[in-house]
């Protein structure tokens, strides 16, 4: 039975408390099994040979010497992965990214893979594979790639979204435009206009666990895959399609996941492991090195954004215009579109236009990274708005409050908002003690806002009541950071059971219907929704069984506090029946008791945040230190507040790293120069202060508990918040992220001259 998803403002007994996570003990004792922690009997070790070139034709691959090496059991190239994608461009790109076909498109692109009896043999075999390349000119910069002189990476890409469609191929696969009103008139009406071009460098999600899987495919066409992933069902579907397997024959089990942040929503080496296993008829384990993770998984886009915003002297924004160029790596994508849609979403604008330009470059395929594309757009918009406030002589928070979107606002990307939290986060920021705290020498305070859509998607949940009356909940989204606890709380709340009596497991792909990726901050939102529905369906069965035990009509039984009760005195005078009692009798009342739900979780509530940041800049070295940081975000309803805070803090920390030091550095040769944690420089413990959080709860009307996704929005404001703080600390407006010491020192010395 479908769920009435409307928010009902029910009073909670358990939701909102902070019980211990059920997977805690396993994770503090080293017992939890992550991707690389599983081994299959008789497994082979696989390694991938990768291109050292940014762009080259593959003339020939000679694997004969490697094949003769003792202990080598299978070698594959693209010839072992025939194109079965039948005109599906998206799937073909996935296939080509997993293994280069006629050309290598980036430094690190896979060209062959080996499975051998051990790592040493596999390493030797890789060295014996000879690849003849014909070098091609490359381009790795997002702006350079758009120039007419740039080498065209795919000769079958003709810009979509322009009329008429170009006849010449280019590195611009798509353009789109969003907005409303008349920006020409809007800028005429403005008293003050700020206009800049902003750039952000490419960053990586930086999850600590490298991609790892164990594949096991038999000659009878059945297969198993153990893998760290944010979406084992999607991995299953895509791998089966690329390998020509029936989807049902491939059973995928998700390991514990050591971080993903969007980077584990795409398949990378999994089809190679499966193809090797099929060829060798042995289980195959394939683990990426850290170097491979940086070079060949899916970092985010680097961007170049033209931003123009105009306002009246009273602070009313009259027009806003952005042109956003994002690269998708070596394949066509629509990341700029996400940037364009999110850019102005915080504001109620009369005249707004945001245009997206998608760019292809010789870099690894771009993947989602936490609120993908939004942080860069917010950096440009929120920097410009701060500058606007300065020019007008208005407080930066006040200016934002004046222009903030509210219920009924037509968003810049189309929809009209329901109840939203941007205004509330801004008011909270304005009144926050952080805003009034004194600042020291060379210190500055900045703030910025951020938006993310949040997703819903296909979801299902099975609840089974066990014979002793405790309950198992099987879900199909991954526990990326404590969601078992949140799901358990919701199931316990509905059923009226103690949290300890609910065990939540992540089901494998053969045990549950299809579930979409755990992305878009949808885990707690959508699986929570399915769990509540499954629990309510389970309660119906429990009531029916109680009715049978009492021999009264089913509709004469109600469920309260974990017990079946007669609906009223007319229904009969029976003492309440607990789940335990009903479960114990199940064998005589109709068999096992369960509740199921399958749904498309529509109505994900949009999410807003406001961040405040104090930094201190050493004017002699350009080095900056975050002294204080506050995150204020609307959660809709915080099911388990500790893990909501954790999402806020983690997103802010990733944003701080992005803002200050993290970046992909490519050499003139098109090769990545800093493919390791040493020189990629994610924040370490001593780089950060405590990150204060403030959870606001403006219920999402489309979720029974009011939940909004909370995972992603927290990475959106930091780039801008820190840039604004920098501007206030040392009087330089940084338009290039990261604001690394050499860039800041240069800006400071330019300011002096």
């Amino acid at each position, binding site marked *: 039975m479908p769920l009435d998803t409307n928010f009902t403002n029910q009073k909670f007994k358990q939701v909102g408390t902070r019980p211990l996570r059920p997977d805690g003990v396993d994770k503090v004792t080293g017992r939890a099994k992550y991707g690389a922690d599983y081994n299959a009997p008789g497994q082979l070790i696989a390694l991938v040979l990768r291109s050292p070139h940014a762009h080259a034709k593959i003339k020939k691959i000679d694997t004969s010497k490697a094949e003769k090496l003792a202990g080598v059991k299978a070698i594959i190239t693209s010839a072992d992965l025939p194109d079965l994608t039948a005109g599906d461009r998206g799937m073909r790109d996935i296939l080509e990214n997993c293994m280069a076909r006629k050309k290598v498109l980036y430094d690190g692109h896979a060209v062959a893979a080996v499975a051998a009896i051990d790592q040493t043999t596999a390493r030797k075999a890789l060295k014996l594979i000879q690849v003849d390349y014909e070098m091609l000119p490359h381009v790795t910069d997002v702006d350079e790639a758009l120039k007419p002189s740039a080498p065209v990476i795919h000769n079958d890409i003709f810009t979509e979204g322009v009329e008429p469609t170009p006849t010449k191929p280019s590195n611009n696969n798509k353009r789109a435009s969003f907005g409303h009103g008349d920006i020409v008139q809007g800028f005429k009406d403005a008293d003050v206009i700020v206009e800049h071009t902003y750039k952000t460098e490419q960053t990586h999600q930086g999850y600590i666990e490298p991609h790892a899987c164990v594949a096991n495919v038999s000659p009878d066409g059945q297969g198993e895959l153990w893998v760290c992933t944010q979406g084992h069902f999607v991995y299953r579907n895509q791998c089966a399609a690329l390998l020509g397997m029936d989807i049902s024959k491939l059973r995928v089990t998700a390991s514990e996941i050591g971080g993903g942040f969007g980077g584990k929503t795409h398949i990378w080496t999994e089809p190679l492991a499966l193809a090797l296993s099929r060829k060798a008829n042995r289980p195959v384990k394939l683990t990426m090195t850290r170097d491979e993770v940086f070079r060949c998984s899916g970092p985010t886009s680097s961007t170049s954004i033209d931003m123009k915003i105009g306002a009246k002297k009273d602070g009313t924004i009259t027009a806003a215009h952005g042109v956003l160029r994002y690269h998708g790596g070596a394949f066509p994508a629509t990341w700029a579109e996400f940037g364009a849609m999110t850019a102005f979403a915080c504001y109620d604008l009369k005249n707004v236009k945001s245009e997206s330009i998608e760019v292809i470059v010789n870099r690894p395929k771009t993947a989602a990274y936490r609120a993908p594309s939004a942080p860069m757009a917010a950096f440009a918009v929120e920097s410009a708005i701060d500058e606007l406030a300065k020019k007008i002589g208005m407080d930066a928070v006040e200016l934002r409050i004046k222009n903030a979107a509210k219920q009924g606002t037509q968003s810049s990307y189309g929809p009209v908002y329901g109840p939203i939290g941007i205004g509330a986060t801004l008011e909270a920021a304005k009144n926050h003690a952080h805003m009034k705290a004194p600042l020291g020498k060379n210190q500055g305070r900045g703030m910025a806002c951020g938006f993310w859509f949040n997703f819903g998607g296909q979801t299902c949940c099975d609840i089974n009541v066990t014979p002793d009356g405790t309950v198992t909940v099987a879900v199909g989204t991954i526990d990326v950071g404590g969601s078992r606890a949140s799901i358990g709380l919701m199931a316990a709340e509905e059923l009226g059971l103690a949290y300890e009596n609910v065990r939540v497991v992540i089901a494998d792909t053969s045990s549950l219907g299809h579930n979409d990726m755990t992305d878009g901050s949808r885990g707690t939102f959508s699986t929570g929704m399915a769990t509540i529905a499954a629990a309510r369906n389970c309660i119906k069965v429990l009531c029916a069984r109680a009715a049978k035990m009492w021999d009264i009509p089913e509709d004469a039984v109600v469920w309260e506090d974990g017990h079946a009760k007669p609906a009223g005195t007319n229904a009969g005078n029976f003492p309440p029946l607990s789940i335990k009692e009903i479960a114990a009798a199940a064998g005589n009342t109709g068999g096992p008791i369960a509740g199921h739900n399958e749904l498309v979780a529509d109505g994900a509530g949009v999410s807003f945040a406001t961040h405040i940041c104090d930094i201190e800049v050493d004017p002699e070295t350009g080095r900056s230190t975050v002294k204080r940081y506050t995150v204020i975000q609307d959660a809709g309803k915080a099911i388990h507040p500790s893990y909501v805070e954790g999402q806020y803090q983690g997103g802010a920390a990733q944003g701080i790293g992005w803002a200050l030091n993290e970046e992909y550095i490519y050499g003139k040769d098109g090769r990545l120069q800093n493919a390791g944690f040493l020189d990629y420089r994610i*924040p370490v413990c001593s780089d950060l202060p405590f990150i204060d959080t403030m959870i606001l709860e403006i219920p999402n009307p489309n979720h029974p508990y009011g939940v909004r996704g909370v995972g992603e929005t927290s990475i959106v404001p930091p780039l801008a918040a820190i840039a604004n703080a920098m501007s206030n600390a040392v009087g330089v407006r940084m338009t290039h992220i990261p604001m690394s*010491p050499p860039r800041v020192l240069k800006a400071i010395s330019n300011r002096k001259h």
Partner: protein
Amino acid sequence: MRYEAPETLKSAVTLLAKEKGLAFVLAGGTDLLVKMKGGFLEPDLVVDIKRIKGVFDIAKSATGFRIGAAVPGVQLGENAALVKAWPGVVEGANLIGSKQVQGRCTMVGNLCNGSPAADGVPALIAANAKVVISGPKGKRTIPVEQVPVSPGRISLKKGEIIEAILLPKRPANSSDAYLRFIPRTEMDIAVVSAAVNLTLDGKGTVKDARVVLGAVAPTIIVVPAAAKALIGSKLDAAALEKLAAACAAACKPIDDKRGTIEFRTKVAGVLARRAAEIAYKRAGGK
């Protein structure tokens, strides 16, 4: 690859001298294993020197300190006498890597890695430290700055092992300091670094000075002009400005993923100035 863990220096030298393939000394392994992991080095022989007597000793004598080749960073920091005498040397060594790396990394290894950005080396050079080398032809002692030749290359000959570092005895009113610039607070390689070793007279005037810069040239460099700027001064603003200018003038850095020429040149002077101020205070100057 073969792994050997001899118990005498002599057998270690013999193993290394006789090996026809690629042979390396293993003490802390925090550089060697990284290079092996990345496939940049495939040794035929690794000689672990940690079972040799005395390699973990820090000995104080009338002539100064003798620090065994395998003494890890953390052990240097635990030796109160050493910290008191050579705070700059110890703080440099203690900046190598994380706490985990500190449990293993050695100053000798840091030196033999041949990196111009080595944190453990500038203060040793500023201290006029020496190394004792054992080889097939016996022992020799050379100044630390004669060990590195160019990035990644050192002057040791086949079969030679550095068995210890010698730090001289401290005169009165003297101390040292080491500072490096990194973008984060930990875990980075120095983008630029400076070590300053000062001796004052009883009135706080700099009598003797040695200024060393890291990561601004193919090897770590001694900057005599910078030392000259300090000698005879009480570290007044003019002297410090001259010091910074001399350091900037001595820089011959490169642009790379860790920093730019412009940045390194500017910040070298800033760090030298700040290190000098710390060393001055430590030496009793006011």
